[in-house]
């Protein structure tokens, strides 16, 4: 307990808030409250914006007050968000009219709810105890929970397009199945593929998109020049990408840590540059168009008499192809997942993880580290290539702009955000990151707040940046940070993330 002479918590918090308010006032007076502008006659006029200054003071002081009052970070975050939302609602109600003012009750009500929830849920809860031993205490049941959650999620995903189709009809559900379903699943698969390299083997690969590109161009070129069907090209694309993985791996895997990351980064860039400039083969920037679309094992998705709809006696709709693509990428992603899970329990998978933990110890036990790294690299590349072939058949058109460093960064962010090595974590992270991007396009009501030319999806990278920083502070090991042992004698107990190494190449 604090000694009696010390100020009470409330006094201290009020003092902190007052000080923060004063500092804000001092800073915002020259920056926010007064502004010099030239009017239409090019004369300088002084514009006064007191409300803006008071708003800033209110926001900062309230946040400081709550931060001093509350111990638990969740309570802090929730309460600050709630109070800010209420302040925003009050501001809207006061200063605006029409559509914007109509939003005020939402902000006020939502903010109040959030504040109440934060205080109720977290104020009383004690500080999280540090696990004393390495086995995370809560993790014993967590392993079972993760498996269960995985199966529930799988059920939801399988039902997803059909439920939407029944609910919204072919027109309404197309966007949801394509933009949310297929798009997210591509990244789930890419995340799982890269997870083998980064999460399990601990090799930092910044050029994963190269293999995605190899797969996509392999299908596009084989299909357009030789007329091979998708079902033949798909395994070929995987093999080709794996071959490139080995080719790159041989010289590169001697390097460790930062050097490996740099060389893979360069390889990713080289691939895009080659694709752009080898015009005879790839048609350069203009890309490859009219790539044959996917067929239902030979039956095309067209309105023709031999098309899918006619063959099965149903009315033609473009949604059929989209649903087929959805299940196709779902199956590909699940294959990636199952193969990874099974390999983790085989000697090769354990050697990957051992490599991540300590490469020198691996060599002292007779593990050929070069071959072990190469298999991880080749396998990751193969799944990237399969995803690439799918991407090409889905888009029908590809050019080098789809395979920039941004893609590599996004996939890596998914793996890191998900918790390196955790399959479910990676899937969750893909849903959050890619689904989040798509949702930003939907937030039209923000236009009412920030003006008509406000495009929320432009702020995607900013939001990702904040999300990454927040993750680093609160959950540096990703969404699911515990590690499941691959075998056990008596009981499977998850290993606390803090004990698991991240690997340095």
């Amino acid at each position, binding site marked *: 307990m604090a000694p009696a002479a010390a100020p009470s918590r409330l006094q201290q918090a009020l003092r902190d808030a007052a000080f923060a308010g004063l500092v804000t006032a001092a800073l915002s007076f020259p920056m926010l409250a007064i502004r010099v502008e030239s009017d239409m006659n090019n004369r300088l006029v002084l514009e006064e914006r007191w409300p803006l200054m008071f708003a800033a003071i209110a926001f900062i002081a309230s946040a400081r007050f709550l931060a001093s009052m509350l111990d638990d970070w969740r309570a802090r975050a929730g309460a600050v968000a709630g109070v800010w939302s209420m302040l925003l609602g009050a501001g809207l109600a006061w200063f605006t009219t029409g559509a914007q003012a109509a939003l005020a009750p939402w902000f006020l009500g939502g903010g109040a709810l959030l504040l109440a929830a934060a205080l109720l849920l977290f104020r009383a809860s004690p500080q999280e105890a540090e696990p004393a*031993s*390495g*086995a995370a205490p809560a993790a014993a049941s967590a392993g079972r929970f993760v498996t269960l959650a995985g199966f529930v999620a799988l059920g939801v995903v399988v039902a997803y397009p059909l439920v939407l189709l029944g609910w919204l009809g072919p027109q309404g559900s197309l966007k949801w199945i394509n933009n949310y379903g297929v798009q997210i699943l591509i990244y789930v698969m890419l995340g799982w593929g890269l997870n083998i390299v980064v999460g399990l083997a601990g090799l930092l690969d910044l050029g994963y998109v190269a293999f995605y590109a190899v797969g996509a161009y392999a299908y596009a070129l084989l299909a357009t020049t030789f007329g091979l069907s998708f079902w033949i090209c798909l395994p070929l694309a995987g093999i080709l990408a794996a071959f490139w993985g080995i080719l790159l791996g041989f010289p590169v895997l001697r390097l460790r840590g930062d050097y490996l990351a740099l060389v893979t980064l360069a390889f990713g860039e080289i691939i895009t540059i080659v694709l752009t400039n080898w015009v005879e083969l790839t048609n350069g920037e203009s890309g490859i168009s009219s790539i044959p679309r996917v067929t239902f094992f030979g039956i095309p998705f067209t309105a023709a008499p031999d098309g899918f709809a006619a063959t099965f006696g149903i009315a033609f709709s473009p949604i059929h192809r989209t649903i087929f693509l959805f299940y196709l990428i779902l199956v590909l992603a699940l294959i990636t997942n199952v*193969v990874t899970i*099974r*390999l983790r329990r*085989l*000697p*090769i998978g*354990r*050697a990957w*993880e*051992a490599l991540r*933990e*300590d490469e*020198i*110890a*691996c*060599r*002292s*036990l*007779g*593990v*050929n*580290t070069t071959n072990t790294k190469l298999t991880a690299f080749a396998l990751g590349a193969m799944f990237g290539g399969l995803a690439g072939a799918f991407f090409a058949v889905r888009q029908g058109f590809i050019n080098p702009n789809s395979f920039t460093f941004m893609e590599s960064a996004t996939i890596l962010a998914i793996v890191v955000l998900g918790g390196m090595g955790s399959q479910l974590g990676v899937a969750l992270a893909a849903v959050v990151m890619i689904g989040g991007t798509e949702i930003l396009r939907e937030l039209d009501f923000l236009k009412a707040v920030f003006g008509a030319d406000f495009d929320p999806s432009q702020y995607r990278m900013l939001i990702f940046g904040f999300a990454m920083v927040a993750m680093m502070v609160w959950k540096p090991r990703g969404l699911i940070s515990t*590690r499941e*042992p*691959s*075998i*056990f*004698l*008596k*009981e*499977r*107990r998850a*290993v*606390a993330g803090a*004990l*698991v*190494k991240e690997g340095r190449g």
Partner: protein
Amino acid sequence: MSRWLTDPILAVEHLSMRFGGLVAVNDVSFCVGRGDITALIGPNGAGKTTVFNCITGFYKPTQGRLAFAREGRADAAEVRALTNTGKRHARLPSGDIYLLERMPDHEIAAKARVARTFQNIRLFGGMTALENLVVAQHNALMRASGWSLLGLIGAPSWRRAEASAIEKARAWLARIGLEERADDPAAALPYGDQRRLEIARAMCSEPALLCLDEPAAGLNPRESAQLGDLLRLIRDEHATSILIIEHDMSVVMKISDHVVVLDYGALISDGTPDFVRNDPHVIAAYLGVSDAAEAEQVVAEISGEARP
């Protein structure tokens, strides 16, 4: 005659290792007897770990030959013949011989079957104790899993191999008293347990020669005694010869059959524990005086002081 001269498993001949201008090991020759516990001792920085790193392939020696006769005594003429061919391995009637200085580290562990532990423990910290011991059986399990293909389809032969690997790991855990903690991550174990787990892990790779770098460092007296028992058990029940670096003289004198002493990278004494204990060169090295005559004088002074 001593076993290390009549039937050496490893013959280190004229081994030198230079790092730039620094000569860490200078023309060292000694033999490791089959079935013996051989101790390699010397003051800090004498080059002991460097010798280990050469034997296990982590360093490529600047000079010298490391002839490893895994199963039986190798004839000197045959070793010379192998050396002249430029190959690393020959199968003789008496057994396989390997020239370790020509092999990369993982092949020394996998083919010649020399296992080691490290001065700073190198366990797979985020993996459980059981997993650590199963990783050590990697090469045998890779073959059993048909380079993962049989394993992926869950073939019965693979299942049997996996079960026996787990059983072997369990037996080793029981032997070092860690069966209860099999499913705990290695990094969460107490220091002494980690030391023993590292030795058990090396033993799971079925080595013919086990190299231990200061296994008793940081152990309390009870743990040191346990370690001595474990080493004797390994020597008596397995066909494994042991080469051990150790600072704790009580451990060295109690368990070893043969002691080799290094100082400033050079070999200064080689013989039975009794011989080495009374060798003035060794006493000189440990007391930090430069020559044997001076050492004898110091020893005489010390014993003279001790007498009354």
